[in-house]
């Protein structure tokens, strides 16, 4: 509890510190969970900072819908995207044959488009060269002759209109062994032979690194994926200089430049911000300062964020779940309703819950805390209920026969007797939340998810461990803290073995 209070205070202090220059324009940049998007985002960060704005980069957000909803609701000002994605997914259902049609449709949402930037990062299907040669495959329609091949596709590609469902229909592909997985992991799947074909982005740095064959799209199924920036219309008033810069970038990033930048980040391990700074300097002749954080700085920041997510969500959950558990134990009807409701909440996939919460709470810590709060309810409600339910009937009778009113019985007898069980429920909630909170990285909530997703994105084990190890340590520490708490909070009489 003390730690939580400390954490809240620290964050409040940080909030005050960051708000000390109210006259500066605040710009919030978003990017998706892959390196190219993060680099394109960082380029905007450097340009905006150059204009004197206070910039925040909500990087590696999970999925187009997260970014789009955040842009519409004003949580973000600008993010990089692709015309194909906009036409096929963001504004799916509209007939948008060209860029002008897209601009017109975006204007309905007060969103403007800068670009194209100069490269087309379209989807493609890739295989290992030797495997493809052995099977005699050079184009996508050749896959039809090999129905037993295993495919691994990014999760977005599995669902998109321009993804696997329509690709397989257009090419009449019948492969049944098709797995949806994180895009960065599919390269490793291909390399190890677990899958034989995967979806690629045509500017992926790994195409050269893994020496892959990009299959010819002989039916020209894939639409154009020209890189663009989407920004809110009000940005033109708030930061006219930045909007000018965004339009000056049109045509300035050819495919070769983007592949090179991707390669610097992913293969040469140059920080994304440095890659972007180099580009800005070469293109505009602007020197930009690069702020580098040490590993320790990052660890401290992520720990603080993670603690904040977990502690606030669990504290809120305790406040609601314990009374709910008491109510569930007191009334059979309410009990069934409460237990099944919190049970159903638990079955909602966390990513789905995050996306549902974004229109209500925006991106960042708020929806993550809300989701973690909802997930914490079940273990605490259930354990409170069980703890109360397991109190022997003669104890209930004795308390009642003494003439204690119902509320006093709960406070003086029942809750203390259930304390061990309730505490165990809270412990379960905390330990689960320490793990689940890493998924907050998808929606810009910070915490240990940030380095973990960065590690996956860049295929860098050190970043991955930078999040995974502290998360595991935090879970273990939480266990320890609760064992100590049990000694203090569970009445001594309940920890004794009967003498007779």
């Amino acid at each position: 509890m003390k730690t939580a209070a400390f954490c809240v205070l620290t964050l409040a202090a940080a909030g005050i510190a960051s708000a000390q220059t109210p006259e500066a324009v605040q710009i919030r940049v978003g990017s998706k969970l892959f390196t190219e998007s993060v680099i394109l985002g960082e380029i905007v960060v450097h340009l905006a900072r150059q204009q004197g704005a206070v910039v925040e980069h909500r990087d590696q957000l999970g999925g187009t819908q997260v970014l789009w909803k955040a842009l519409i609701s004003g949580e973000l000002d600008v993010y990089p995207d692709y015309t194909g994605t906009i036409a096929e997914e963001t504004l799916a259902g509209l007939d948008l044959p060209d860029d002008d049609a897209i601009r017109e449709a975006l204007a309905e949402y007060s969103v403007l488009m800068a670009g194209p930037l100069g490269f087309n990062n379209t989807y493609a299907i890739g295989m290992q060269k030797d495997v493809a040669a052995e099977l005699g495959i050079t184009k996508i329609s050749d896959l039809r002759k090999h129905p037993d091949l295993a495919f691994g596709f990014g999760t977005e590609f599995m669902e998109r209109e321009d993804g696997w469902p329509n690709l397989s229909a257009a090419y009449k592909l019948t492969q049944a062994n098709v797995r949806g997985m994180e895009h960065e992991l599919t390269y490793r799947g291909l390399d190890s032979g677990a899958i034989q074909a995967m979806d690629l982005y045509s500017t992926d740095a790994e195409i050269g690194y893994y020496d892959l064959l990009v299959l010819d799209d002989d039916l020209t199924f894939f639409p154009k994926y020209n890189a663009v920036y989407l920004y809110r219309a009000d940005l033109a008033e708030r930061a006219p200089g930045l909007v000018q810069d965004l339009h000056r970038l049109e045509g300035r990033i050819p495919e070769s430049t983007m592949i090179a930048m991707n390669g610097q980040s992913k293969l040469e391990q140059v920080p994304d911000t440095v890659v972007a700074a180099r580009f800005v300097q070469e293109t505009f002749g602007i020197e930009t300062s690069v702020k580098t954080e040490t590993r320790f700085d990052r660890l401290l920041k992520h720990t603080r964020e993670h603690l904040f997510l977990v502690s606030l969500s669990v504290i809120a959950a305790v406040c609601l779940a314990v009374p709910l558990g008491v109510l569930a134990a007191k009334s059979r009807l309410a009990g069934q309703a409460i237990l099944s409701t919190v049970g159903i909440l638990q079955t909602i996939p966390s990513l789905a819950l995050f996306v549902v919460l974004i229109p209500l709470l925006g991106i960042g810590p708020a929806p993550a805390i809300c989701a973690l709060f909802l997930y914490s309810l079940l273990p605490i409600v259930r354990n409170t209920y069980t703890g109360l339910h397991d109190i022997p009937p003669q104890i209930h009778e004795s308390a009642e026969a003494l003439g204690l009113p119902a509320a006093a019985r709960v406070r003086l007898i029942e809750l203390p007797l259930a304390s061990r069980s309730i505490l165990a429920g809270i412990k379960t909630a905390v330990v689960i939340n320490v793990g689940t909170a890493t998924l907050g990285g998808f929606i810009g909530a910070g915490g240990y998810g940030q380095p973990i997703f960065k590690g996956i994105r860049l295929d860098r084990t050190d970043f991955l461990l930078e999040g995974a190890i502290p998360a595991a340590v935090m879970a273990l520490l939480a266990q320890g803290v609760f064992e100590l708490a049990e000694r203090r909070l569970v009445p001594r009489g309940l920890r004794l073995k009967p003498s007779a």
Partner: protein
Amino acid sequence: MLRLSGVSKSYGKQTVLHPTDLSADAGTTRVLIGPSGCGKSTLLRLIIGLIVPDTGTVLFEDQQMTGDKVVELRRRMGYVIQDGGLFPHLTAERNATLMARYLGWDENRVSKRLSELTDLTHLPADSLSRYPAQLSGGQQQRVSLMRALMLDPELLLLDEPLGALDPMIRAELQSDLREIFQSLGKTVVMVTHDIGEAAYFADNIDLMRGGRIVQSGTLAELVHQPADDFVTSFINAQRSPLESALGDVS
């Protein structure tokens, strides 16, 4: 002081107590006895309002045990059950004084009453700071009795208070209990299944079977003027093993 008129209780189709009348005068001891499931514990729980009767009324000091009054009236009764029903998270002292502290008695009054009861129940003083799990069965029952007597109730209800104790401790506590009843002059309703114990305590014994009081009277009346064969066989069932064993010896 206590008057039950036509009280009955059923759970679904099973009647655990047929319409029954029972009364107890101030300062007397009544013992309810009978085989398991005869309804004797049900009768006791009806008196203290843990169960609401389907029919009939329970009058305590001319007030009906219903609704809001139940909580208040219970504080004028003491209730002791077989295994003590002590709260495991509280020490013996806290168990005994829980209600007094809840009602806001000051420390002086609490400790004065506590020491009176410790003397009365012969509880070793060092037991007060122990938790129920650290007490023997006999000590637990003494603490349970202290708890029941804390507010100095007019009526004491005991549901097989000695049932779980071994014979030596039981005998000791039996004599202590009788002494306490006699010295305090309280109205007592006690449930037991042991005819010897019933005779030891009771002014009046109520023998129950199948949810009815079969016969009400002194032990002598039950032995010499049994209402039916069941009364005779119930009494003989408990007396014959020892007597036949003694017969073999002599």
